[in-house]
């Protein structure tokens, strides 16, 4: 089996597992919050919507588990994630579709920036091991130990409340109509700077540490010594021999770190009231909006899977060994 086919099979399997997990969790857990809520909503939910909620949350006792599962898949494939309780009667899929682009933008840009910056800094520190650069390590340790949301709180306190440079919450100027104008884009960038910066600062340390350790390991390889012996300039050795090989594990750990970064960013959105999936999830949790919660989880997981798939293919493009094997 070729590399790509194997990875594709794995991701299809993982997607299936995530969707099934989403089906199983509400059925495994004790208590029945949804019935209680449907009871409270009595009469305001039309029968069709109530039916889809029952299917999604397994309230149909007269159906076998297998029938419930099949029905659940049928609804999912039609894009029906149920109705949100709090924003009744808006379908969950609409709310999620509205929030997703904001999160993808925020996470995407800040992750790419953090990755590039962290890798560059890590290369420098790993190369200059034993000099003042090593003293940067404790700082990165500190930042990797701080929870994202707390850095967000500090950033708001300093830059939004005290200095007044950036707005403390929201994702664009509420007085504007969302259109594709320069003014609006500028507002989005202005509101997004502080959250993005905070995500970058808190996630960059992981990349720095990883790259530094890989540089230290790679730099004693024979091919680096040979490159030196050939009389190549130090710069050529760093970029062309050491960093080039040290970056491979960075790319492969990208897929693992992504879930962590996404989790952190979701909480960051809650702190900044940034209208992405994280904030939606937060609202759903505080108002016990179970369909919305499940929908958010599903969309987050599937998006992370897609991002992983991209990172995997990038890795295969960079490292021919992965394509050969098997």
């Amino acid at each position, binding site marked *: 089996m070729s590399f790509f086919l194997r990875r594709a099979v794995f991701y299809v399997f*993982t997607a299936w*597992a*995530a969707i099934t997990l989403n089906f199983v969790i509400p059925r495994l857990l004790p208590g029945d919050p949804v019935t209680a809520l449907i009871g409270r909503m009595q009469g305001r939910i039309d029968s069709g919507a109530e039916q889809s909620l029952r299917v999604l949350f397994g309230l149909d006792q007269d159906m076998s588990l297998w029938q419930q599962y099949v029905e659940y898949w049928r609804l999912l494939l039609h894009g029906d994630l149920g109705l949100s309780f709090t924003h009744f009667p808006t379908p969950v899929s609409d709310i999620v579709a509205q929030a997703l682009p904001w999160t993808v933008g925020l996470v995407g840009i800040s992750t790419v920036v953090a990755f590039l910056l962290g890798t560059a800094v890590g290369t420098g520190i790993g190369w200059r091991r034993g000099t003042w650069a090593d003293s940067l390590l404790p700082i990165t340790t500190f930042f990797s130990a701080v929870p994202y949301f707390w850095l967000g709180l500090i950033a708001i306190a300093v830059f939004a409340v005290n200095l007044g440079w950036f707005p403390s919450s929201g994702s664009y100027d509420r007085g504007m109509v969302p259109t594709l104008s320069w003014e609006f884009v500028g507002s989005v960038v202005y509101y997004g700077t502080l959250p993005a910066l905070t995500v970058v600062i808190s996630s960059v340390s992981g990349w720095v540490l990883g790259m530094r350790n890989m540089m230290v*390991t790679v730099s004693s390889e024979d091919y680096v010594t040979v490159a030196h012996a050939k009389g190549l300039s130090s710069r050529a050795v760093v970029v062309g021999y050491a960093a080039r090989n040290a970056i491979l594990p960075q790319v492969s750990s990208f897929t*693992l770190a992504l879930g962590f970064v*996404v989790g952190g960013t979701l909480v960051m959105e809650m702190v900044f009231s940034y209208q992405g999936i994280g904030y939606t999830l937060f609202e759903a949790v505080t108002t016990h909006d179970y369909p919305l919660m499940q929908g958010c989880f599903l969309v987050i*997981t599937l998006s992370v899977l897609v991002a992983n798939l991209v990172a995997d293919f990038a890795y295969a493009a960079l490292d021919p060994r992965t394509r050969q094997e098997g």
Partner: protein
Amino acid sequence: MATGTTSIEVAAPTGVDDPGPGVARPGRRPRLMFLRNPKALVGIAILAVFAVLAVLGPWIAPYDPNQVSRDLLQAPSGAHWLGTDHTGRDILSQLIVGTRGVLVVGLVAGVAATALGVVVGVTAGFVGGAGDETLSAVSNVFLVIPQLPLIIIIAAQLPSAGGITVALVIGVTGWAWGARVLRAQTLSLRRRDFVEAARATGERTWRIVLAEVLPNLTAIIAAGFVGTVIFAVLSQVTLAFIGITPVSEWNWGTILFWAQNNLALQRGAWWWFVPAGLCIALLGMALTLINFGIDELVNPRLRSTGMHARTLRRRGIRPRVGFTPVVRAGRPAVETSEEER
């Protein structure tokens, strides 16, 4: 999870030639070498302070953390070292009492996740074949699914998400990383001579696993445990901050929850949200430092003990690539340089 353990994974594949981590080399490595590592020592010291606070917390806290007083939102003073919150409760007492909750959850989640990781990882690595394929697939799935949202939706649907429940949820969702690293290392151990020898003498499989394989995984298991504890502490504090866990249970996240919901930021009440975050950072840093200590024990290339910038300059050594200062027993610091000029 994402930081401290990286180099272990790097170390694992290269470990095929040299004796694996933790293999006893009698007479060469001094005992308690781990405790001579300054990073690990600092980490253990900080952790010990928190542990004492966790045990003695309720007795040494100056006030009852729930006691409402008339000093509303006071800045730090002699009476309230870290000030008070919006109902006049003492924040220092909340911090001290909350330490126990944080440490207990971290510990329980760490133990649960490590146990699951060891069982899955070692089994997968040792059994091989179809069993390995299945277990690896399961742990890869758990690695790829973002943990925090998963923990949030599970915890939010539980009727009462108290400390131990949250710890178990974190443990059940967070074992995959350890399992993956352990599997890789077990795979490389499985065909070593000493394991083959044990097999040839007719030892039972479970005895080979317990007596031959597991002791050689100690360092990796320890690193995985510490990593999971860091992740568990962060997750639990996050959950408390979002307001999923009951606010009656004090932990550092609960303090931040009250601060965020009562506009501490807008009121400029820095004493309300800064100390709790610093405590989290300090605890996380202590655990990361311990992990560095373990990493350096396993992968000697990462060690730079005793070779600080000043030492290097004094000896006229220019730090360059391909240069590995290694500390050997008996001699204080001997440089083995592959390309000294």
